[in-house]
């Protein structure tokens, strides 16, 4: 009775299984081109703030390397991460959870020791969402003096996965470090008073607002689905709008140094004046901070208070191009 359907299913399975397998090329079988090798070599230089996926895969076992994933979506790290990577949860590990602040020295010391990070350890950060929170991580690490030894994986998780490079679900075991954090440096962080001084033209600095054009113009207060809002819509006077995503190629990698220079120069940001990056909570803007500060070498600070602080402040000047009242018309 059942021979025929069983045969049909077997044939169907027989057809599908091999095609399914051939759809996933074996990454190990793909020989690296000469160009890729050269790029990998150049990446090892201490100057570059980026490492390529090729370089990282070749150096996974390097002794003085710590790979750290900072992703937004829960469970992403656990279900498969770059072999040897450790997990950092941005909204509990990198911040204070009661007051609104970056992780204090004690908390950061404990985190760095757990991750086995010292002043001379090479740290490669990566994450989902185009490295948003990995860049936030780089900004927090930089305030604790971990600057030149901290790199971003160019293209982040997205590129690593797209290239079908290996993932691992096991936990890395690293020897704890003896790092001790001092008070965070104030040089990379803009505070409300700094931004207000620029808004009132008391200080000659530039503000780069990297939110979407609709947030910048005041048409909306925040992206759809966001609960943490401001009471007013619009932007800080004197700021220019270049959404963070313009700095990124479709494959997730950052654009070339020349392209980035031209992108910001078109809006009048050429590094001649100090720059403050800003967004809604200071997290997407740390992506642009990384580009300006680490790639282009400009004097840039990130304003993590951003619109949720400024747009809620009383008595400060605001520009609202859309003319919204309480977020509506």
């Amino acid at each position, binding site marked *: 009775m*059942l021979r025929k*359907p069983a045969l049909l299913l077997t044939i*169907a399975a027989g057809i599908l299984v091999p*095609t399914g397998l051939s759809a996933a090329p074996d990454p190990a079988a793909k020989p690296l081109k000469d160009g890729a090798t050269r790029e990998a070599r150049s990446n090892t230089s201490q100057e570059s703030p980026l490492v390529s996926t090729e370089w990282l895969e070749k150096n996974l076992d390097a002794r003085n390397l710590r790979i750290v994933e900072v992703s937004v979506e*829960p*469970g992403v790290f*656990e279900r498969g991460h770059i072999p040897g990577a450790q997990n950092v949860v941005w909204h509990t590990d990198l911040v204070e959870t009661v007051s609104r602040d970056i992780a204090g020295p004690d908390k950061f010391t404990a985190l760095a020791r757990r991750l086995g990070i010292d002043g001379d350890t090479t740290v490669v950060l990566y994450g989902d969402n185009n490295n948003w929170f990995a860049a936030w991580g780089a900004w927090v690490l930089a305030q604790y003096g971990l600057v030149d030894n901290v790199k971003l994986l160019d293209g982040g998780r997205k590129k690593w*996965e*797209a290239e079908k490079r290996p993932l691992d*679900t096991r936990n890395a075991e690293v020897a704890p470090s003896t790092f001790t954090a001092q008070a965070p440096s104030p040089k990379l962080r803009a505070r409300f008073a700094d931004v207000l001084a620029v808004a009132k033209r008391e200080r000659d600095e530039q503000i780069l607002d990297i939110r979407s054009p609709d947030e910048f113009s005041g048409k909306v207060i925040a992206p759809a689905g966001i609960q943490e809002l401001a009471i007013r819509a619009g932007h800080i006077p004197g700021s220019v709008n270049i959404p963070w995503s313009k700095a990124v190629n479709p494959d997730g990698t950052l654009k070339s140094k020349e392209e980035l220079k031209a992108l910001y120069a078109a809006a009048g940001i050429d590094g001649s004046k100090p720059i403050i990056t800003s967004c809604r909570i200071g997290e997407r803007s740390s992506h642009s901070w990384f580009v300006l500060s680490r790639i282009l070498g400009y004097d840039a600070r990130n304003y993590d208070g951003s619109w949720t602080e400024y747009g809620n402040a009383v008595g400060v000047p605001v520009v609202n191009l859309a003319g919204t009242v309480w977020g509506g018309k």
Partner: protein
Amino acid sequence: MRAAPSGEALPLPTRSVSAPGAGRALPVRATLAAAIAVGLAAAAWRLSGEPGGARFALSLVFGALFGFVLQRSRFCFYCQWRDYLVGSDPRGMLGILAALAAGVAGYAVVLGAWMPDPSGTRLPPDAHIGPVGPVLILAGLSFGAGMAISGSCISAHLYRLGEGSPTAPFALLGTGLGFVLGFVSWNPLYLASLSEAPVLWLPRHLGYGLSLALSLALLAALAWPLLRRLPAPEAPTRVDPLRAVFVLRWPVWLGGLAVGALGTLAYLRVGPLGVTAEIGGRARQAAGALGLLPDRLEGLDTFRGCATAVRDALLTPNGLFIGGLVLAAFAAALIADQFRPALPTRGQVVRGLTGGVLLGWGAMTGLGCSVGTLLSGIMAGAVSGWVFGFAMFAGAAAMLWFGRRTGLLA
């Protein structure tokens, strides 16, 4: 254990003569089933080729496997409970316990790797570990009563949709309405109770080893009285293996072991098993569009469980999971000649809708159903899974007793 003969204790609807597929020759049904299987495989293959599509493809495959297992073993929480209460047959309930035992062990292996130290303040990623309090008990009771009235839980209605059940569409519609009622009642419940209800995760307090031992001991204690009431084993008969897989009903314990394994694998690769995230998300989207929802659902999106985040994407992992479940159950029912569509009677419509509303309200306020909160919760070591489970079975028993006494339920 033996393979139960086909059609044993199956509450199948009366056979409809005009029903397409019913009674048709095997080659027609098998060809249709094979076409569905090929279609599902092709869809999974297509999804897996798109950037970031591996999760979608896996969700579809896990959904299809889950649907196949549910249909083949008739893994239905209410039917097993009713078989025990009314028919004194404990085999189905033992199957549910087998699913939990296999899943508890599987989850312990995964969780131990993901979070070597469970003692901190963190919970394992997206495991269904919910708040434990009076609302959870109410949710379980409501869900159980809804099962008794509508004839099964949400996951079983889904696989029965694939069998052409006349009740299932109304039960699922009722579930959507129940979700909306849940959203409307959420804020007062959250402020009065849920915000202060503890989120209890056994491994945090006991470690993985003790937590596993305690869960297995509890399951064994529940199994003990059931094992003593097993019917006398029948003489083994030789069965054609293909017939055993595709036509005869699987013994429930076998389905249970498969569910436990699937639960573990799904958690490892995609997320805990659950069937209400999509229903709840779509209900929330629709109710929001109609202006029926409060502006803010306090704290809802911070809880674990079958997340009901508003859906704006066409494809979601849970949506694909449900789609795979229903289609695979349909294919499995076709081969086994258990696809019996029928026109619904008025009683089926009323029971489906009212039971469905109770199912939906319970699944919304309980942050999941018999799959998401009970199965996936207990497997993860969540106290909420146990509490919901006990309340659910109690609610079903009470409603069954009441229904039979008043003559409203069979």
